[in-house]
């Protein structure tokens, strides 16, 4: 199986999708409202556009076209018109991008009825999930944490980069395969506590578990909407403890949804309060990036708190 970076895996998925289906069109780059508006029109025609937003931080001019148009077109026309498009965007920080190249706006999409939201963490998933997103009949927001394009970044920014070629999830099969939207992946099995996370923070949580000696079960959610509630609930019922980790700002972040879901469905199995480790509720800073980023030390500290509660 060839080793690929996440960039190569995404490019491969594009090529395969376009080869298999000549209604797939790919375009993008930095005139976001126009790109998404045009894509909605193309999708209404019957194409399957897969468009790129330069950075997730720049999606806001297109937000009306995503929320009011793509997300609601099927519903408001009672299925007369649909918008099967995929909107890709690099997300998250860790590259000294400052406040305009670092944001994680996934909760702005998970809050919208009619959208599906995917956040990938590795090349294997990126290819299979992108193909599934393009083939899906509904609009899919496809978030690519830019810090893991070239390797499984674990938050230790002062250490050499580990390339995907040295990681099992960098092994990407040739040809077509899909990973169904709505299925989480158990990234690391464990008995002490359940970590619910996605994107770059999957690898950070793994480092935190390895370095703290806490036997965490790390669940990579992969798709936030629809959410794989069964995998989450089964794990929390078994471990009795739950830590939610994401890079996006804390307040009203997707972690709040996860926390509520866990207490609604596994309350009597909980030994400790569900705890969140997230980005601070500030704009993403440039010079103070590593004080903002929820790195392995912060995650490990939270794990110890959950274990001792």
């Amino acid at each position, binding site marked *: 199986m060839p080793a690929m970076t996440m960039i190569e895996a995404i490019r491969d998925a594009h090529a395969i999708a376009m080869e298999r289906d000549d209604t797939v*069109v790919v375009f993008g780059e930095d005139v976001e409202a*126009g790109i998404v*508006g*045009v894509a909605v029109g193309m999708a209404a*025609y019957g194409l399957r556009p897969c468009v790129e937003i330069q950075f997730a931080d720049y999606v806001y001019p297109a937000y*009306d076209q995503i929320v009011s148009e793509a997300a609601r*077109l099927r519903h*408001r026309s009672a299925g007369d018109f649909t918008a099967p498009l995929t909107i890709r965007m690099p997300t998250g920080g860790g590259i000294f991008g400052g406040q305009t190249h670092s944001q994680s706006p996934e909760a702005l999409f998970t809050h919208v009825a009619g959208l599906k939201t995917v956040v990938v963490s590795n090349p294997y998933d990126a290819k299979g999930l992108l193909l599934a997103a393009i083939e899906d009949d509904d609009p899919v927001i496809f978030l690519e944490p830019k810090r893991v394009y070239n390797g499984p970044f674990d938050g230790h920014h002062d250490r050499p980069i580990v390339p995907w070629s040295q990681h099992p999830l960098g092994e990407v099969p040739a040809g077509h395969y899909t990973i169904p939207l709505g299925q989480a992946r158990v990234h690391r099995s464990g008995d002490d506590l359940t970590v619910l996370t996605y994107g770059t923070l999957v690898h950070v949580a793994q480092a935190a578990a390895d370095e703290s000696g806490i036997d965490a079960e790390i669940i990579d959610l992969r798709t936030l909407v629809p959410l794989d509630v069964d995998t989450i609930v089964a794990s929390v019922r078994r471990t009795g403890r739950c830590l939610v980790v994401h890079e996006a700002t804390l307040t009203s972040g997707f972690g709040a949804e996860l926390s509520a879901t866990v207490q609604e469905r596994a309350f009597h199995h909980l030994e400790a309060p569900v705890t969140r480790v997230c980005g601070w509720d500030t704009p993403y800073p440039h010079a103070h990036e590593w004080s903002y980023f929820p790195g392995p030390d912060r995650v490990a500290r939270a794990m110890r708190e959950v274990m001792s509660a």
Partner: protein
Amino acid sequence: MDNPVGPALQLRIPEPARGHRPADPVPYISAAGEMRKPDLDEKVERIALMRKQLVRVLDDEGHAVGPWAPALDADQLRQGLRDMMTVRSFDARLLRAHRQGKISFYMQCLGEEAIACAQRRALRADDMHFPTYRQQGLLIAGGHPIVTMMNQVLSNEHDPLKGRQLPVMYSSKEHGFFSISGNLATQYVQAVGWAMASALRGDTRIASAWIGEGASAESDFHAALVFASTYQAPVILNIVNNQWAISTPEDFARGASATFADRGYGFSIPALRVDGNDYLAVYAASQWAAERARSNLGPTLLEWVTLRVGAHSTSDDPSVYRPDDEADRFPLGDPIERLRRHLTVIGAWDDERQAALQTEVDALIADAFAEADSHGSVKSGHTSSPATMFDDVYATLPRHLVEQRDRMEG
């Protein structure tokens, strides 16, 4: 000036160019037949001044004059009159239904009927329009079942949109009518995308984008022109200038431009300003723009000068911001009266036939409304099942919506 670095900066606060209660004449009115008709592929700079003039065919006596006069026979002209009268009767009946408390909301297109009706007839049935809320003429001239439109307005059990949309927010792919959003201007750039898709697929269908003059100040309008110009998309870009953006006079959105057709110039998109109350001019200009699109000559921008004779919607009271006699003083008259005069002048019409058609159209509308009304309305509680709100959010019902639907149904 005491300040050595120059005067204090001042902001221009817009004032209505035609007065606070405008009934002053519309600027730049050419005479019927005065404008030349350019070749389809004429260079944009050679027709640049047409954006500050007015394409007109019907003169004050009802004669069709000049090179823009379209080749329409008497049957087609009578069909156009019938389309417009049907729309007007449809609007009148539904406004009455609103006063009767049977519907929650309505928007009429009184005075603007020619634009949608004539363009629908000038284009092909399988072209796709991306309309606003005032193009019901597209559906009626396109032969869409009137009862079905009324069912939508009533939000009753037979509403094809299952009570999800405000009245008049129709959708019909079959009749080339894109789902109306209600968010202004979003459809404009989507129309360009649809047209680009059609060209990418080697199709022959074109798109027609619709917007009001006020909403042409929205950013999506400008995004649409960028893509239409860059990719030379096969699209017609209509701006219906009905003089009023709700209660704001048309020149507020226009800014320092002389006309809305000016907006095409910066994108090198050929732009015409057309008498929107002249059925023949609307037909001819639409046909010209459609032929350009079909010949891979790119987009055309058409500003239709007309007047919104009625209120913006049933939630609006125009008496507080416009004079009662504005329609009487509007220089372009009434589209139905003008086509009727033309038919009379060419000997294809008379008062007796007019009266008979009015009776026929009113009866058609009355019968349609009686049938739609028999299916109830949102006001009488005869709607689709509430559980249907969970359908069509996604292609297949996801688990969380199944759970929520079950919870709602208790």
